[in-house]
């Protein structure tokens, strides 16, 4: 039924396929940890994709491209931050508007960049390690962003769990009134988190336009931002689970195409909806444990206004 699929190759390609949603989801996780729900991930990703692309093509450096993508995503996130933190606008609606605006703006910025090849990002040179059967392909055959995405997951996990910064972010997200009473600048902390989220989403977008697809076309992110949002919930706001969620989702997507290519007998129409159904199924299993709550930050989606 499954035909001939090489598991090492499958794992290697799902690692690449998952990078954009993983980066974006991680950024959103930090945002949500601080108590802010930004549904504009798709918009920030696509702005990151075009900003990264333009920067890389103009400067010839893919590295600067990623910096440009992060800056672009953060710039769009700044609009969100001003609206929701300073002007106390509704977060859900502002996030959706952000996506609409980002899609339009990216298409405007991208005029004239169709059909250009960006400078390529090579795999990290691991030398002979790459040739280890199986493991070499999985562990040592990728570009730097794949490793970076795992590192940043680890770093976020560490910061959130063990540092004072992480404690403050969590405090702000759980109970902003208490955090304010303790003297923390709630809105400034949230602003920083929103910018971080934008930068990560922008990098994720840049990964699509610079490495995964290497090109610019309108609407290139094609819904990846929504998947990233789903993964945050799926991960119940835990960094390592973002990794698992992204790999799972990316893995099923890659697997269903591989199954088709290998001539599997499962009908295509069911395969194409499988990533979503399996995500729901896993989520149900995870959340149905004995009375466990979902671990959502208590102040998620609520704006904070200092009364004193």
């Amino acid at each position, binding site marked *: 039924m499954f035909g001939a699929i090489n598991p090492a190759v499958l794992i290697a390609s799902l690692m690449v396929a998952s990078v954009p949603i993983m980066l974006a989801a991680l950024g959103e996780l930090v945002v949500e940890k601080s108590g802010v729900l930004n549904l504009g991930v798709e918009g920030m990703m696509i702005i990151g994709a075009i900003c990264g692309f333009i920067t890389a093509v103009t400067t010839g450096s893919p590295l600067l491209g990623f910096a440009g993508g992060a800056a672009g995503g953060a710039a769009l996130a700044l609009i969100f931050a001003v609206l929701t933190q300073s002007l*106390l606008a509704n977060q859900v609606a502002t996030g*959706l508007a952000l996506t609409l605006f980002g899609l339009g703006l990216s298409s405007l910025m991208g005029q004239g960049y169709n059909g250009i090849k960006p400078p390529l990002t090579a795999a990290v040179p691991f030398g002979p390690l790459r040739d280890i059967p199986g493991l070499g392909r999985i562990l040592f055959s990728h570009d730097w962003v794949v490793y970076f995405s795992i590192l940043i997951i680890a770093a976020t996990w560490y910061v959130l769990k063990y540092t004072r910064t992480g404690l403050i972010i969590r405090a702000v997200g759980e109970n902003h009134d208490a955090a304010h009473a303790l003297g923390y600048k709630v*809105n400034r902390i949230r602003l920083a988190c929103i910018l971080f989220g934008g930068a990560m989403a922008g990098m994720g977008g840049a990964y699509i336009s610079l490495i995964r697809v290497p090109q610019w076309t*309108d609407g290139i992110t094609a819904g990846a931002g929504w998947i990233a*949002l789903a993964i945050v*919930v799926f991960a119940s706001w835990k960094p390592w689970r973002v990794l698992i969620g992204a790999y799972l989702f990316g893995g099923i997507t890659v697997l269903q195409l591989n199954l088709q290519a290998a001539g599997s007998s499962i009908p295509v129409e069911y395969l194409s*909806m499988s990533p*979503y159904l399996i995500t729901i199924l896993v989520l149900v299993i995870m959340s149905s444990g004995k009375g466990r709550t979902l671990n*959502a930050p208590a102040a998620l989606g609520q704006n904070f206004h*200092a009364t004193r």
Partner: protein
Amino acid sequence: MFRLEKRPTPSRFWTGATPVVAVILTMLAGGLMFGVLGKNPFEVIRTIFWDPLFGEFAWYLRGQLLVKAGPLILIAVGLSLGFRAGIWNIGAEGQYIMGAIFGASVGLAVFPTENRLIYPVMIAAGAFGGWVWAMIPAILKTRFNTNEILVSLMLVYVAQSILAMAALGFLRNPEGAGFPGSRNFNSYPAASNPELIAGTGMHWGVVAAFITVIAAYVLLQKHLLGFQIKLSGQAPRAARFHGVNPTALVVLCMGISGALAGLAGLFEVTGPAGQISIDFNTGYGFTAIIVAFLGRLNPLGILLAGLLMALTYIGGEMASTNLGLPSAAIQAFQGMLLFFLLAVDVLSNYRVRMSMKGTA
């Protein structure tokens, strides 16, 4: 530094004035963008906001405004009930698709029978389709505590796959020479949803939208359920003391919003769209979320917000066709309008005061 001071009650003056302020600000910022793109800003703005209402072809476009706003309002009103109660149905798009598929299936199953009862049954089937699709996240939430945002969103993609299967397979027009897409309902009178009065754009979906607005208004103002919904959103614990059953409320709110989205899909597929096709859904379910918030989750506000949204679509389209603006510029312009509408809302709930010291 400016600082904001919460008003004891929202300002009536600013609640009415903020939309106007927002539209003016958008015109300024958008005009700047259009100018940068090398177009005459005044002409573009006039085309978007004035021409659909009072221009040369307004007799046609005013009706189209209703056609475009109808499904948005219908879906947004349903969503607003859940949003008020803190129940986040983000998947109205999927419920809209399923309503269309269920309703269309019933109609096509009895093709070409002519009977007065067919359309009412289809309406019921459409509402049922949307309701069923919303019940999945509702039951998973109440039974397994699964997050409804994620499940309803994932189900949009599943619904899209089913839509493709329907258009290519079980609902495909047997006389369509193998091409995807169902029969066209406009050529099947018993199952179609035509303009009720020629040239007005009024079809059953628009009628349903108006009825829903009124019903929701009454529900929220006069009915105990409306009070329970509002209370659950503002103070969940207090609601529980008042005997509100959270499980029932989730099922009810998800059910209403799903059924209304399903209805919107049914009216659309049998009327303006005419048929099931691979790309039948055009994002009404997502845009309705914005409409719900623009309308401040208030039925009358949603009515106005839906019409305003429709205006920017139609006017934007005209600007794009007649003045050669890229459609991306219109998208960005819509985004700006939403930003400003959301931003100035602060004035109705807060007072702006000058102060010596900055605040957090």
